[in-house]
């Protein structure tokens, strides 16, 4: 007994490659502790500043490790280009959400330290998820990202909607997790391995393609992941949760969770389950098509911007899946490229919604009316975001969709490209009214269109601008500018996501 134990050694850890994760989790601890300090100014401003510093440090570490491919902790995690890119997206989303949450009521209510450290822990979980090469690590990562998000959704303690959103997310998310875990258990039962590489070897060696247990495992894994990535027909929680959660949290969830989920889908299905491609491809194709249709049709006629964007995110997830089902390097590149442009557009839109919500107390499309005249920066950013999500040329969204359709055609699934185009055409019917609402002149001057109350001349609007916060405007402006720049000069984007599969499956 003792002789066996004596041979137990700690796994070799490449600390340099591990450092981005440590940046996030260490940041979470520091932020939590600083959140305990008594001066109010440190809690309200020092804590978010430290959060941004932690995300920034992580981005720095990523750039330092840019060309590395290292297998970590006995192949439980891997740092390769895909991990680095997903982590980068998560960190950018984290910085933007922190800026949006700077004067958020929710952060005050559950204490700043908790709010922002939960944000950092969720981001860390996303990185673990995207980097994992082992079923156990994958599940740990998934829970690490889900649990903080459940709390963050319910963080407006005095809002019934927010609590409902948190509870709904908790219950549906748990069902998703349980399904996924059951799938993983069967996968382990079928192959006797938890390691992605080991599963791959076993599936090929035992010829498990088409085996009943293996099929059941893949099926439950797909369902579990589809729950998390909010893909139709497992999407019902999305609109309610997005609407009820504090807007900065919604922004983070919609962008970062999707990036992490797509990251793990690409890694799991491109490596471990690759031999079973004919088994799982039809399932993902069906989910992609249903998501595109349900998302786009569901968004029509929504009056709440957050609900509309929730349905839109379902459709966007459907587009993203097209890059997965072709199972080519071009497909993987298109997925990551689309994740980038989706991030830019969604963050810009949610930044504008955050500002308007603080000014008018509502996230209805009507709350944007007349914004073009009052705040051209916000209205411009929102316009660019909507056009980009719809995929209009000269915005980054066009480049993203172009790449996805190119990947679909290249992989022999031209008809899926056509589905994307049809979906985008439907989507114009709900994106464009938002743009129209902002730029149409106010019909009744002096009356706030969102609330119907009389607006006091001059002073009230200045007070409004004060309440909205310049940080949120900054996020909207930066993201909007990026949409435009990358829409016209997409070359840097192509270079960023090029070689996304570099180092994929080493170790």
């Amino acid at each position: 007994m003792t002789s066996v134990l004596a041979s137990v050694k700690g796994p070799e850890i490449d600390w340099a490659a591990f450092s981005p994760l440590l940046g996030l989790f260490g940041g979470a601890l520091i932020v939590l502790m600083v959140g305990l300090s008594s001066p109010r100014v440190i809690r309200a401003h020092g804590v978010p500043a430290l959060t941004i510093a932690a995300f920034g440090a992580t981005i720095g570490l990523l750039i330092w490790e840019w060309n590395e491919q290292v297998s970590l902790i006995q192949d439980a995690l891997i740092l390769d280009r895909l991990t680095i890119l997903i982590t980068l997206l998560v960190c950018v989303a984290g910085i933007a959400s922190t800026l949006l949450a700077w004067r958020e009521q929710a952060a005050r209510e559950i204490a700043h330290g908790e709010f922002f450290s939960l944000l950092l822990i969720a981001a860390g979980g996303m990185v673990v998820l995207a980097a994992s090469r082992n079923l156990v690590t994958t599940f740990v990562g998934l829970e690490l990202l889900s649990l903080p998000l459940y709390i963050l959704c319910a963080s407006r303690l005095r809002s019934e909607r927010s609590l409902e959103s948190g509870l709904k997310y908790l219950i549906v998310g748990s069902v998703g997790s349980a399904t996924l875990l059951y799938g993983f258990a069967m996968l382990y039962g079928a192959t006797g391995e938890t390691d992605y590489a080991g599963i791959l070897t076993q599936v090929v060696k035992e010829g498990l393609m088409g085996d009943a247990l293996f099929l059941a495992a893949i099926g439950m894994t797909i369902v579990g992941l589809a729950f998390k990535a909010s893909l139709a027909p497992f999407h019902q929680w999305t609109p309610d949760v997005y609407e009820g959660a504090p807007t900065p949290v919604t922004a983070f969830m919609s962008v970062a969770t999707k990036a992490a989920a797509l990251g793990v889908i690409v890694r799991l299905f491109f490596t471990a389950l690759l031999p079973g491609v004919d088994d799982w491809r039809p399932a993902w194709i069906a989910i992609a098509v249903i998501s595109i249709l349900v998302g786009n049709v569901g968004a029509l006629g929504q009056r709440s911007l957050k609900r509309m964007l929730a349905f839109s995110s379902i459709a966007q997830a459907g587009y993203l899946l097209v890059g997965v089902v072709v199972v080519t390097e071009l497909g993987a590149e298109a997925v990551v490229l689309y994740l980038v442009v989706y991030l830019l557009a969604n963050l810009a839109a949610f930044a504008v919604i955050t500002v308007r919500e603080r000014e008018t107390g509502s996230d209805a499309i009507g709350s944007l009316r007349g914004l073009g005249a009052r705040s051209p920066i916000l209205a411009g950013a929102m316009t660019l975001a909507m056009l980009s999500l719809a995929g209009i040329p000269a915005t980054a969204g066009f480049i993203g969709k172009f790449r996805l359709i190119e990947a679909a055609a290249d992989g022999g699934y031209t008809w899926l490209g056509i589905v994307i185009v049809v979906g985008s055409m439907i989507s114009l019917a709900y994106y464009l009214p938002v743009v129209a609402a902002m730029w149409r002149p106010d019909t009744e001057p002096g009356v706030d269109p969102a609330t119907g109350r009389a607006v006091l001349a001059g002073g009230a609007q200045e007070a409004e601008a004060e309440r909205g916060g310049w940080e949120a405007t900054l996020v909207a402006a930066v993201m909007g500018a990026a949409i435009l720049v990358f829409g016209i000069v997409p070359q840097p984007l192509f270079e960023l996501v090029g070689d996304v599969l570099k180092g994929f499956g080493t170790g």
Partner: protein
Amino acid sequence: MLSTYAPAIVFVVLGTIIGIAFTVLNGVLGTSRPSPAKLDPYESGMASEIKQGFRFGISFYLVAMLFLLFDIEVLFLYPIAVQLRAFGTFALVETIVFIGLLTVALIYVWRRGALTWK
């Protein structure tokens, strides 16, 4: 193949027999002097009297929850404590990191005032 499961089957059979035997023997041999308190579920000989609208402080829940959290996390220390010499330096460092994290949590709970009885 089946012989592998033989101990389990023996266990189930024995468990069933003994369980039934004691229940039946109790009824046959024991004296029966019922009182309302004894007929209550979970009686333990005490009159269980819970009035509707019974209230007790929410602090109970908080403290119980914190106790569970720390208790279960400390549980992980036992196996390491037993075999620390065999595991060596790596396990020691891991344990110290683990306790450090627990301490951070404890400090947080304390400073947030969750340990003060309200």
